[in-house]
């Protein structure tokens, strides 16, 4: 595995504000990823299914959290990522993305850092939660124990 981006200090917590999410962004992500479920771009379809309007695919939240993690821990250093979708993201939503170091582990002789990820809407509702692990040569003293 590549060790790119692992030889630098890691901040204990990072936070970034993104958005507002727009219909154009949702459509752009649909085209980029290939998810053409009409629930995400067809207003009439979404309403007929009982939604107030279209909403973003969970994978958009996952990609945003992954982007934060890659910038923070190093794009080539990531070893695993899991993201759970807990609420919908609507057009107009502004999200706070947050990563927090949770601990360190040694896996097969490689030192890894584990961190929690959250995406939070302006209503304080958590829309996605994740866990990321990344190779790291740097000790994060505050996180030990």
């Amino acid at each position: 595995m590549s060790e790119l981006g692992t030889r630098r200090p890691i901040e204990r917590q990072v936070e970034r504000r993104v958005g507002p999410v727009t219909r154009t962004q949702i459509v752009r992500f649909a085209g980029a990823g290939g998810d053409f479920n009409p629930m995400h771009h067809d207003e009439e379809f979404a309403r007929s299914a009982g939604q107030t309007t279209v909403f973003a695919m969970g994978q958009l939240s996952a990609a945003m959290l992954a982007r934060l993690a890659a910038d923070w821990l190093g794009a080539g250093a990531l070893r695993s990522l899991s993201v759970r979708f807990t609420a919908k993201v609507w057009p107009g939503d502004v999200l706070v993305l947050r990563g927090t170091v949770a601990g360190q582990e040694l896996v097969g002789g490689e030192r890894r850092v584990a961190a929690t990820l959250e995406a939070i809407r302006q209503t304080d509702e958590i829309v996605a939660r994740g866990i990321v692990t990344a190779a790291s040569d740097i000790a994060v003293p505050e996180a030990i124990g």
Partner: protein
Amino acid sequence: MADRDLIGIEIDHVEFPVEAGKIREFAVAVGDPDPIYLSVEAAQAAGHPAIPAPPTFSVVAGHWRDQSAMVARLGLELGRIVVGEVQWEYHAPVYGGDRLSGTRIVRDVTERAGRRGGTMTMITVETELRNQRGELAVRQRDLIIETGVVS
């Protein structure tokens, strides 16, 4: 409703070319893209041999497969499906120009009472994506939930 006999079945297979243009489109859609996803020069300046794929890019390969056929194969009702969780394990870096292939396999099937009534079915499907050299690059697991029918 799905049953545990599904565990181990192969749903479908994908051959997926990782294209630099598609990586760019994906990174731009996510917003404020890192230049390493936009130009070979920026990628190489950051130490990558080519434009790297963003961490969740393997989901694009999912949409190269017939998602409705998968739902039908699993005996689920499309209108009640949500993806609850996705997991990625990174084993080898993926770059523009690579060719990934993998088979989607059912790993687990469980049921539980839904919060709003009915029975909720949870199916874990896994795809091991290997590159053109046969190396395991990414293992992706999706937790597919069929929500219960309220009677």
